[in-house]
């Protein structure tokens, strides 16, 4: 029990961070993390013991997120701009206070697969192989999604458009 906690709890801050980036709602994000932990504990004996624990937890979390997205017909995910207020400490992004575009808004405009690959690789420091495991796709697909995500984010930060806006504020 303590042993499992010692393995899992160090991963919780990263699981929360990824959840907030996906959901943009602090309460919903912690619900997602809680669901992730419940599922992880239930499946603990069935996990691959040689696999990477962090990648396994992110896999569970993302799959639960996708399941929720499907159930809600995507309505629950595209949150309004007011949800940005729920992300703590906007001052942490110095450019935000200078009127620069919020990277998280740009992130929101990406399709989920691109958003996740960028978050997992660039923020959560997963290797490309681990990201491929979480996303359930070949390594080459990870690289091409990463390229598309970065191209769109560049475009967003330069012009405010990604060419694929799902919602316009």
């Amino acid at each position, binding site marked *: 029990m303590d042993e499992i906690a010692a393995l899992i709890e160090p991963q919780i801050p990263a699981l929360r961070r990824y959840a907030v980036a996906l959901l943009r709602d602090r309460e919903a994000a912690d619900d997602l993390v809680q669901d992730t932990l419940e599922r992880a504990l239930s499946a*603990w004996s069935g996990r691959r013991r040689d696999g990477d624990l962090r990648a396994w937890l992110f896999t569970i979390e993302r799959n639960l997120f996708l399941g929720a997205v499907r159930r809600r017909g995507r309505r629950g995910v595209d949150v309004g701009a007011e949800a940005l207020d729920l992300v703590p400490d906007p001052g942490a*992004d110095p450019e935000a206070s200078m009127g620069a575009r919020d990277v998280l808004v740009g992130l929101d405009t990406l399709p989920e697969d691109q958003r996740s690959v960028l978050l997992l690789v660039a923020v959560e420091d997963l290797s490309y192989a681990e990201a491929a495991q979480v996303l359930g796709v070949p390594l080459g697909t990870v690289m091409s999604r990463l390229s598309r995500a970065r191209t769109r984010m560049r475009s967003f930060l330069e012009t405010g458009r990604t060419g694929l806006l799902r919602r316009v504020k």
Partner: protein
Amino acid sequence: MSGDPRPVGEDDLHGLIDGRLEPERQALVEAWLAGNPARAAEISADRALRERLRARLAPIAEEAIPARLRVANIRPRHRLVGVGWFPMAAAAVLCLALGGAGGWVGYALHGGPATAMVVEAPATQDAVAAFRTFVVEAVHPVEVRADEKPHLVAWLSKRLGHAVTTPDLTAYGFRLMGGRLLPAGSESAAMLMYDDDRGTRLTLYSRVGDGDGRTLFRFAREGDVAAFSWVDGGMSYVVTGRTDEARLLTVAQAVDAQVRGLAPDRR
């Protein structure tokens, strides 16, 4: 030798942005970018984006985690698909509700009547009963001792009609003492007993039946005796002991890995 002759690719550029290149490769990619200013500007923007994204999200990971997300406060929920197990606080009373492969383990979390194990968990019930009977036995805890292991394995395997192995638990401080044959309805069950240097004993009970699927571990507690049970490959297994749940779970996982051939049992 400046080794890698492969041309620069998109994967190298991501590797550069994410700081994942070997120094030699990084130098090569940077040299390539020096001759491609347009691409270099994009890469520079991508690196800046990476830093902004990290800085923007960093505060979340630096917060204290809410108490409800502590592993000790997490309960598997019934709505989860599959079978959950979770060692509850020592005061928790067992409430096993086993179904088929999609069944559930329910827990009497707080209070509740001091129920015994319900009949749907016959293997666990039998295993705990056998444990209680034989673990206190000083003179004849086992029928066949560990020094006759080949005979023990052949005998139990023949009587169960299924290969019985004797997992090696020395890495967890437990040595095989030996085993015995037990009645299980019209069938037979095998019970292996292990002990550690302090005389703590645990048993591995196995018998044929209970479906051929695979279930996750189920946790049960009856008084001071704790048990983890699971079904795999047409066999039911129960690891039982008077030891803390974490240690017992570690043992159960090791047994599971060894009987599935996923880990060497170093017979």
